[in-house]
């Protein structure tokens, strides 16, 4: 590793957006977005198409200017001190071009040079990056001949080549096969374990659920919710789907269920009842307790509460027009 730079002594939030706004004409691509990411954590940035993820990440990566607000990396402004921010940042854009007549090793070598790495330092970083991203066997492949997934790896390798403290990855999983996704997750986690701070975007909540410490959900430029998955889910008043299986007849269970106002039975077949309740975890626990208290013999009690897609859809749906 590169010797610890004094920059690492910074103990404030490593990434910080303060009331960031960016308008394109009438479109408010980013609208007063604020959040912070502490060192060593992975922040997932989730939103549907056109939510403003790329726009705000590009501002943070010093490639765009905000209409107002501030974007800070380790306390340094991406707007007024782009050089300082750039040297501690690795950015992987959602689409990027590559050079003709260049192979992977030359590509990485070029960016290592461009990042000011020289001599043994550079060759060591190159070996590390090639091993870490699994590009070693592809070193001689011309870039134009790479598949989408391999290009993603190469781009990640490029972002990592100068061992930046902060990584900004715009949809790194797009176009990856399932196995490569697992690889990516492993890579992200091990980078976080090395105290890197990572901002990663995606449309797909489940994709991020296992690698992110916290997430922010953005739509139409507005940050709708931030927190851990559990926090976000917990704060939601939502309709949760529940399926129970009882030992005997369903009549008793149906009766006691209908005594609750917020329960709506969807179907009942054989020993199974499928219904929804209105509320979060607390409500679900209360319901279970009352069912058991009412002497109903439950064999199974399951909810579809792990459907992150639902959470996502609920948060983003119609909240902002």
């Amino acid at each position, binding site marked *: 590793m590169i010797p610890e730079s004094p920059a690492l002594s910074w103990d404030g939030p490593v990434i910080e957006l303060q009331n960031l706004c960016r308008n394109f004409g009438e479109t408010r691509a980013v609208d007063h977005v604020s959040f912070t990411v502490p060192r060593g954590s992975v922040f997932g940035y989730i939103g549907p198409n056109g939510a403003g993820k790329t726009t705000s990440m590009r501002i943070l990566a010093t490639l765009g200017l905000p209409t107002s607000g501030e974007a800070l990396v380790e306390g*340094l402004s991406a707007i007024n001190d782009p050089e300082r921010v750039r040297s501690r940042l690795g950015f992987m854009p959602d689409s990027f*071009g590559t050079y003709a007549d260049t192979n992977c090793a030359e590509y990485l070598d070029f960016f290592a040079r461009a990042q000011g790495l020289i001599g043994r330092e550079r060759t060591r970083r190159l070996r590390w990056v090639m091993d870490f991203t699994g590009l070693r066997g592809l070193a001689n492949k011309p870039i134009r001949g790479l598949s989408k997934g391999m290009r993603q790896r190469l781009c990640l390798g490029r972002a990592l080549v100068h061992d930046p403290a902060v990584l900004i990855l715009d949809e790194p999983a797009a176009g990856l096969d399932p196995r490569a996704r697992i690889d990516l997750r492993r890579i992200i986690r091990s980078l976080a374990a090395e105290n890197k701070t990572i901002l990663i975007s995606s449309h797909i909540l489940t994709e991020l659920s296992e690698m992110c410490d916290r997430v922010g959900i953005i739509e139409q430029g507005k940050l709708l919710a931030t927190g851990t998955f559990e926090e976000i889910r917990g704060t939601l008043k939502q309709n949760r789907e529940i399926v129970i299986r009882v030992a005997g007849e369903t009549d008793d269970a149906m009766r006691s269920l209908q005594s609750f106002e917020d329960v709506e039975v969807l179907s009942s077949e054989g020993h199974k009842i499928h219904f929804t309740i209105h509320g979060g975890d607390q409500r679900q626990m209360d319901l279970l307790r009352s069912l058991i208290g009412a002497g109903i013999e439950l064999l199974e009690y399951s909810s579809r509460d792990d459907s992150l897609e639902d959470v996502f859809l609920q948060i983003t749906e119609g909240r902002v027009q």
Partner: protein
Amino acid sequence: MSDHPEKALAIDKNGLSKSDQNGDVCGDAEAEFPYHWLALDVERDGFWGKVDHASRRVAEWFNPILVKEARQSLKSRQFIITFFLLLIASCFWTVFGVIVNAPNVYYVPTGDAMIYGYYFVLAIPLIGMVPLAAQRSLAAEIDEQTFEMLVITKLSSMRIVMGKLNSAMLQMLIYFAAIVPCLAFTYLLRGIDLLTITTLIVVIFFTALVVTAAALMMATLTEKRAGQTLALLATIFVVFIAEIWCAAFCLDAILRRGVDSEELVLTGLFVIVGLSCVALFVKVAASRIAPVTENRSTGLRYLMFLQQLIWAGSIGLIFLFLDGDEDLVSIGNLVIGTYWLLMGTFMLAESPELSPRVQRGLPSTFAGRAILTWFNPGPGTGFVYAVATGTAGITVMALLGMTAGGRSSSGQSLLFAMVMVGYLTGYLGIVRLLMIPLSRRLGRAFTLPVSILASVLLLSLLLPSVISVATTGSTGGSYAAIDTFNWAWTISEAMDRRFSPNLAVLILLVGGVIALLNLAFLFREFDYRRIAVPQRVLDDSAGE
């Protein structure tokens, strides 16, 4: 962005099977493959190990872009084709020339005849191809999104542009190397001396360098496709002019008339003026791709100042030692006036809002503020800077023409200077006055003040004729006061040494009035104060 996992999977599978001999790309079985040589340290001992070490160490000094482009372009088709065409052309000319001069080659010096052909073999790729390739290379980076990845590295915008320029120079060197044997051959045929050959090469090389720098600048002017196409056309035009100019200078002045002290002085001045242009173009290109919050103006203004000094110095030298014609001074002043009108127009596109980062670097002492304020970015300071520096330069030149031409001075160079100053302040002032309301609605692209300037210049060409047709029913036959609006006519009249002093004063006065009007809108940019550098940035610099 395609989101078809199945498809991606299929592609990946393909890729995997292709690289089967490389095994598992996901990183478990890596140990079986050697690393690419670029990722290995030099471990060889002995003589070759040392050579390896040394050459790698030298390569560390090169601009990374040069290293990359050298690797890339040596594989590129355009380069290989050009190189072989050049080789074939030079061989062809050698054979052809020898056959045509067949018996004479043995007894009569024929080198001077042969070199004409080699001139074209060298000048066409150097001045014609290299700049266009350089512009395309930079424009393609911007167009194909590779550029953004480049600017967020540690490379400064200046190094990026210099890297491109260096790569172009490397190409020139390779082309040049291909033709060295032919030049040696012409020298052996006698009839041409080394000095001539060297001067020729210097002129070709510097012309190519200036055009390449200009081409790089053109590549950064716009990101839009249509704009890029226009910029390419503009460069082709510049290349065309440069080819003609270079051919005229090389073939006529150097080859036909032979190199004497006059040609040497001209070549020297050309090299100096050319270098200052290269510096300016490169700096403009670098400023265009630098972060918007950076101070992209002050450095350029220093360079413009330097360039004026060099220009005035060159003209002065020629005037004093080669050619004491007062017209020369007037032509020099015409160039200065045009230069500042154009540069001033570009500066009008600057934003009057200074970013905090620029404000940090403003002069803080009173003296600094008094002198250096005009170097601060902003349209107002730009206006004053262009007008003041231009006026100073024109005046000094005119005085030079008056005193040195004492024996025969007609005072015309002074009248011409008054006309130039009047036009500079007047036209730049009008563009600025129009720019203030228009920029609020149309933004601050540099194309706006340039189009305003073009329209104003065009209108004032037509205005006198329109007025005289409206009032007298015919376009006035001879030059009258109203025709002072017609700058083209006025300038040619003033050049012809029969200009009325009254009209010159009139032009100067009108220009002055417009300039005064402009000063009314200036106070704001006077008021910028330096702001403190944030503590966090100071801490960070201390840690470096």
